């Protein structure tokens, strides 16, 4: 039994922030949970999927974030508390429905949890979701520690029901993926029954149809809801203050920055000088509460990550209150005390605080970085971003690169988000030349493929993963098929949403809850669009490259090559080698003319290591996954494979 199902009130567990959010949803009696995988958000749905059957919760990995939110909304409309989870980019995908849903309102509590990724540790943009709350006029909550991650999640459902609208609970990487002690509350009894009441009066929020029209009425009603939320926030127990009654200086912060700020105050020992106002309700801001604290001091530092959301909203309030509270001096992002890009950490906050308070403190002593770098260079091997040993993408991009080089017309690849985004770098032979949102490779390629009339003669390829294919590639492909755009899509089908941890997608026969489900065939979808479709194993380099060259030459509009090979890290494959690889040192040409270390200099699978003492390549048996591909790139036949026992 998962510890998340422990019903002993008051018991404590060390939980990851994402688990705390899942537990909060359980304590709120969530019945529907949907999402699309994306770091740092994925563990929430995974935790719930694991216990979904035991707890009578319907959990799904949806095709994309917009669909996930629609699925969750159906739960809310039917009287079931529902949770929808995604990473920050997912909110962009869901935003069209998000606007409509915020206008139509919800019934049973519905909470949207976006997990933002300041510093873009596992993202392609640093975009953040908080602005959506203001844009679509829904309340925004931000837990400031792990206990709050659970408690505020539970409270978010109540708030949603109080105002009959969606509530956003925003987490960040260091909240989602760090861990802390969490004291459990009670789990409610299951009394779920679903039914959609829709025959009532058109404006009846509980019995009428669910829609964002008539807009004038609904929009005004939505603003009433926000007013109500603001009133509730004035007394929200999760907005806390620590520090002297009359602080010399006030920090206003939220989310993980709460933890950094506390640490900074403690490191500098300025507990008697600095007050810390940690806000859990960051939109709409509660004006009375803020007025109370802003009146206590004239200097304010806002600590938050990425854009100055809190900073600007507080400044608006201060401007409005200026006749009563006077003029304040602000420190934060706009004056550069806090960086506008990247993650924060305690050092950065200590630095900002020390600077403002005139304390001589250096978070990082002079010369430390040089010393650290020096030590690094002498002691550690240089490591660069690369595909895993045995990754099918390395083989796929090897063939794509070679096919384009042979073709010789300066062809290129348009891509999107996935492990294969690394093909921008030498590990993917720098083959990828555009990298944008999920599915954008196909869309951009569809555009390039129509430029022939302007003299454009470069071959165009696009790549997407199998999960991405379902998520956002299909409309782009239909566009290309309909307009007879000339390009080749390569679907890098590694049988799962591999980058985020092998979550199932519509192409698989199993769903989030482990049930047998209908799998949707990528090849058949493409054929139905009229595309020429080929399926190959990317580990067969010769056949893959040959097929690619044929497809690139084929002027017949949309072509699709599905390169099917399971991810090297997949649970099915992990630690099972197909081949035992060995090196015949006599045959290895090494740095000589005829090879010049093609395996360790160009192919660069981490399982291949250059032995500079012997001037030959050797196999790192620990890293090698036995895919056998390197045997085919060795020009001397020195890399040998034999079927593993």
């Amino acid at each position: 039994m998962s510890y998340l199902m422990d019903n002993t009130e008051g018991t404590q567990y060390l939980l990851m922030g994402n688990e705390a959010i899942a537990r909060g949803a359980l304590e709120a009696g969530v019945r529907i949970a949907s999402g699309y995988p994306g770091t740092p958000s994925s563990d929430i749905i995974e935790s719930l999927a694991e216990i979904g059957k035991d707890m009578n919760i319907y959990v799904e990995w949806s095709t994309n974030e917009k669909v996930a939110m629609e699925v969750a909304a159906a739960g809310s409309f039917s009287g079931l508390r529902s949770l929808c989870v995604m990473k920050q980019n997912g909110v962009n995908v869901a935003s069209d429905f998000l606007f409509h849903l915020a206008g139509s309102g919800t019934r049973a509590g519905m909470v949207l949890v976006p997990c933002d990724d300041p510093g873009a540790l596992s993202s392609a943009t640093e975009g953040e979701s908080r602005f959506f709350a203001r844009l679509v006029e829904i309340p925004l909550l931000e837990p400031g520690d792990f206990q709050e991650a659970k408690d505020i999640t539970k409270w978010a459902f109540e708030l949603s029901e109080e105002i009959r609208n969606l509530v956003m609970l925003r987490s960040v990487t260091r909240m989602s993926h760090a861990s802390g002690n969490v004291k459990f509350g009670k789990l409610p009894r299951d009394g779920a029954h679903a039914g959609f009441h829709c025959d009532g009066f058109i404006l009846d929020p509980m019995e009428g149809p669910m829609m964002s029209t008539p807009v004038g009425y609904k929009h005004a009603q939505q603003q009433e809801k926000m007013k109500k939320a603001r009133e509730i926030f004035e007394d929200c127990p999760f907005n806390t203050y620590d520090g002297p009654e009359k602080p010399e200086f006030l920090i206003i912060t939220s989310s993980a920055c709460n933890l950094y700020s506390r640490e900074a105050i403690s490191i500098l020992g300025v507990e008697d000088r600095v007050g810390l106002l940690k806000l859990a309700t960051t939109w709409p801001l509660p004006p009375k509460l803020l007025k109370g604290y802003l009146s206590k001091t004239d200097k304010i530092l806002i600590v938050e990550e990425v854009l100055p959301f809190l900073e600007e909203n507080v400044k608006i309030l201060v401007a409005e209150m200026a006749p009563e509270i006077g003029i304040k001096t602000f420190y934060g992002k706009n004056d550069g005390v806090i960086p506008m890009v990247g993650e924060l950490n305690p050092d950065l906050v200590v630095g900002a605080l020390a600077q403002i308070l005139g304390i001589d403190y250096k978070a990082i002593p002079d010369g430390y970085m040089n010393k650290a770098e020096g030590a690094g260079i002498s002691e550690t091997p240089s490591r660069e971003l690369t595909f895993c040993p045995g990754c099918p993408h390395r083989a796929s991009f090897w063939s794509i690169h070679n096919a384009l080089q042979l073709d010789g017309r300066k062809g290129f690849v348009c891509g999107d988000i996935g492990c294969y985004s690394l093909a921008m770098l030498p590990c993917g032979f720098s083959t990828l030349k555009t990298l944008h949102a999920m599915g954008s490779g196909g869309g951009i390629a569809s555009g390039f493929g129509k430029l022939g009339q302007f003299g454009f003669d470069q071959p165009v390829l696009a790549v997407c993963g199998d999960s991405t294919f379902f998520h956002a590639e299909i409309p782009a492909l239909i566009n290309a098929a309909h307009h007879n755009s000339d390009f080749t899509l390569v679907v890098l089908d590694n049988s799962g949403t591999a980058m985020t941890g092998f979550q199932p997608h519509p192409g698989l026969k199993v769903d989030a809850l482990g049930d047998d489900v209908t799998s949707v065939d990528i090849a058949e979808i493409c054929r139905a669009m009229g595309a020429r479709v080929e399926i190959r194993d990317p580990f067969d380099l010769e056949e893959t490259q040959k097929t690619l060259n044929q497809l690139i030459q084929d002027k017949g509009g949309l072509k699709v090559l599905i390169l099917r090979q399971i991810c090297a890290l997949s649970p099915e494959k992990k630690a099972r080698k197909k081949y035992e690889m060995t090196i015949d040192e006599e045959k290895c040409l090494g740095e000589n003319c005829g090879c010049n270390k093609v395996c360790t200099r160009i192919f660069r699978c981490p399982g291949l290591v250059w032995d500079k003492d012997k001037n030959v390549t050797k196999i790192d048996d620990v890293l090698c996954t036995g895919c056998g591909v390197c045997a085919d790139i060795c020009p001397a036949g020195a890399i040998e494979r034999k079927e593993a026992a």
Partner: protein
Amino acid sequence: MKIFGPNELLEDVFQKDLCIGCGACTYLCPYFRSYKGKTAMLFPCNLAEGRCWAYCPKVDVDLDELAKRFFGRPYDDDPLGFHRVVKISKAGRQAASGTFQAGGTVSALMSFALNKGYISAAVLTDREGLLPVPRLALNTADVLRCSCSKYTASPTLSAFNQAIKEGYKRIGVVATPCQILAIAQMQSNPMGDEDFIDPVGLSVGLFCTWGLDFRAFEAFISERMDVEKITKVDIPPPPAEIMEVYTDNGKREIPLDEIRKLVPNACSYCIDMTAEFSDISVGVLEGRPDMNTIVVRTERGENIVDEAQKEGFLILDDIPKENLEHLIWAAGNKKKKAFMKAKQEALLSTTEQGERYYLRVRPETVEEIIA
């Protein structure tokens, strides 16, 4: 002579649009490959010295050294290169019959050399549609499949390099002058390998005034007919001035002026019409579509031709005076034009080490040729 590497090859040949796609640099390593008539470098290689550069017939070809090695004297102004005899020839009764460009001399020689074991395999050029495809022929049937001129620049030497890799010795090869020049450089062991063995069992050169860029030719033809249905391509000797393209539906004639536009830049620098570093060179004979012109250069070539004649594989005859004169004029004309162009562009050198040129040859020889 100082040897350079792939970076210099890119600079001297690829970037100057001098690559003819002969295939000499391909399959020696993982980096150079041929595809649809073009040679591509797949990945960068930073070696200071490489066979790719050493074998390339378009960079630093030391004509004097090669001539000394093969014929015991420096390069001179003979338009046909060093030769023992020029004759006319055709396949004899003992040779298998097939579809030939002219007299079937090349197919007969290769079959004979294979049958007699003088060569273990023959590197030839087959055709798929219009695409020239290098092949390794092991018997007469294989040889006959590869008969007839392809007219497009072909990476024939990729099959030669692969044959060496697969362990073939005494390899026969039928090649255009540029390819023969590359092979001559391979035969000279430019990298100084200690265990070097000359891989060539018999080299037969083909007369060539120019080849066509395959991709341009394919595009040109496919605008006019179905490339897949082409059975034979021929350029009858002057004064016809046409290319004949045969399909199942008959013959189509294309004026040569249109075709000449498809000749790659590299051909305009070529000094060699008759493949001067082969054992034997073969071409057509004006006015006699059933016969070839044959130039015998080496002792090995001479022995094989004599033996083939004795055993009925080859029929030889004296070349008419006017044919020989015209051949000399045509070959001399090509050589002169190319040397003048190369000289004008400062691509000729003699002694400087470290500098890189197209050709190395004594200045007095150049003056004699140009005069």
